[in-house]
């Protein structure tokens, strides 16, 4: 499989605190990777470094052959093609649902307005939110917000979508609707990097699972291996909590 994202020896400090201690990760096109690990292990930081919401201190982030750590002038180019879905949705509160979807394709990708609008309705239909197109985002439930957020990132036709605990802020009864959307998405062949605590979901959806511990990739492999028969003690300890 074609390698789309290559991370080499990635280090990130917050002041004195070393949060990422040399991450190596290679992502193939179309791969779906779940990232698990206890809170504070650096999962979010890793994702945020990939689209430079945090600036890495050291290492390489190579997307399609270009190392953006040394080419930070071209960040926009990277961000156009790698979208992110956040735990707290982060919808644009001043815009209606449809405008949340249309803003960035028009302003960033310079897409034509009408065409974007038509596409937005299609994408909203995909995530089951078409009826809410003209509503204010304030009127939506958490699950609906997250589905809109996913739709918004899809509007950019990204090559990779980064999900940072997309269901952690949701009431339990809304988790399913978001996971279903993600499962549908997985079938389209898009590359996904998902930080999650939904082990069953991870098992179903992923090609690979990564266990992070204290800023390094502690163990990685097929979902069945990692989630059912982990080799490392740390991984076992962590997974016990989800039994």
């Amino acid at each position, binding site marked *: 499989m074609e390698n789309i994202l290559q991370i080499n020896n990635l280090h990130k400090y917050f002041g004195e605190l070393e949060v990422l201690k040399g991450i190596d990760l290679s992502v193939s096109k179309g791969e779906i990777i779940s990232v698990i690990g206890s809170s504070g292990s650096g999962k979010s930081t890793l994702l945020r470094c990939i689209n430079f919401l945090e600036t890495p201190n050291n290492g390489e982030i190579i997307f399609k052959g270009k190392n953006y750590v040394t080419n*930070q002038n071209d960040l926009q180019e990277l961000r156009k093609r790698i979208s992110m879905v956040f735990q707290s949705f982060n919808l644009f509160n001043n815009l209606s649902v449809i405008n949340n979807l249309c803003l960035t394709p028009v302003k960033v990708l310079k897409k034509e307005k009408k065409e974007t609008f038509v596409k937005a309705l299609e994408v909203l239909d995909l995530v089951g939110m078409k009826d809410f197109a003209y*509503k204010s985002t304030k009127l939506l439930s958490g699950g609906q917000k997250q589905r809109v957020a996913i739709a918004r990132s899809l509007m950019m036709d990204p090559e990779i979508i980064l999900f940072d605990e997309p269901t952690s802020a949701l009431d339990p009864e809304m988790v399913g609707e978001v996971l279903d959307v993600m499962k549908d998405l997985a079938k389209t062949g898009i590359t996904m990097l998902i930080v999650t605590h939904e082990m069953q979901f991870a098992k179903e959806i992923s090609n690979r699972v990564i266990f992070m511990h204290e800023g390094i990739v502690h163990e990685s492999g097929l979902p069945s291996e990692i989630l059912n028969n982990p080799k490392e003690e740390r991984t076992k300890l962590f997974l016990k909590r989800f039994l």
Partner: protein
Amino acid sequence: MLKFVKRVLVFIIAFGIIIAIQSRDDIYASEVNTDNETIMEAIEELRFYSSYNYQTLTEDKLSQLIVDFYLPVRYGDVLIDWQLESEYVELGTETETIEINSITGYVEVEVLKVTILEVPSVFKGDQVFELLASFEYLDESVEYSYFGTLVPQISADFLGGATYTLIRYFSLFVEGALLTIGISLVGTVIGFVLALFIVTGKTLNIKDFESKASKITKQVIKKVSSLYVIIFRGTPMIVQASFFWFGLGLFGNALLCGLFVVSLNTAAYIAEIIRGGIQSVDSGQTEASKSLGMTGSQTMRYIIFPQAIKNSLPAIGNEFVINIKDTAVLSVIGIFELFNQTRKIAGMHYRQLEAYLIVALIYLFLTYTVSSILRQVEKRLDMPLKELPSSN
């Protein structure tokens, strides 16, 4: 030549009218003299006391009549025939002789007394009447028409005084209030627009990989914007107004200068309000925007600013209300906004208590009304978006 003499004579007669205001002891007039050489002197010297000051008698002095007064019956050899029709004043029929304290001592003058029958009420307003003087001079008959204005009298008690002040000077209060509202509103709007620039300058983002020139330019803009806010928030508006008007004579027009000062002052405050509004927009939206490839300025323009402005609207509206009160300091540079009008009004009758109480109530009315209107507008804005029909 004849025309000139006639005109002079008319003047003399006009000035010859003696008005006793408040105290007859105050009457002061020059000696009557028909000698042509001294006519001009007489005109210049013929003076009287009003209740406040010492002035030459001219036509407009008759516009403040509040007590009985006297008309001269003769000027030298010339007999003057007076006529007067009015329900408010009455011309006496019998001549009498009164003593006037002039520069050359007391002189006796033959006069007709004009009695004020009724002081018009403040509700009726000023009453104008016509005085007709006719006389023979150098075989010519001369007629001269003269207008007097009876003004309502202010009563001594508080309520009467307040009613009088309010009714008599209503239009002045309204003028002042309109100017105050106008300056405050325009000043707030201009201030708001300026604030957008200032806050943009203050919140410029300097990135690591920018060119040196761009970094320095941004630094300078940031510093200047900050300094602007510090200066205008850190000095009293009365000092700013005096500096720009008395110091620099800006625009050569006090009103424009005052508007300028209010706008600049408001801009500094609104800039800080909007900056607070920007900080109150949660950073998640900025991150989402950036992660979708929007530049910093696009994020600011399409996401942060609209929300910051909306969040700031109540505080910005409050700036308008504050301006309604604070523009009173513009009186110092001679703008007749509400407070300065009131000072003028209070000065006319020395009824300070009434005038300032009235203006306090007017200010209260203005600020309360504007606040209520703004609250209504806020409520409207806060309502959830109207449900539009969905596309299917």
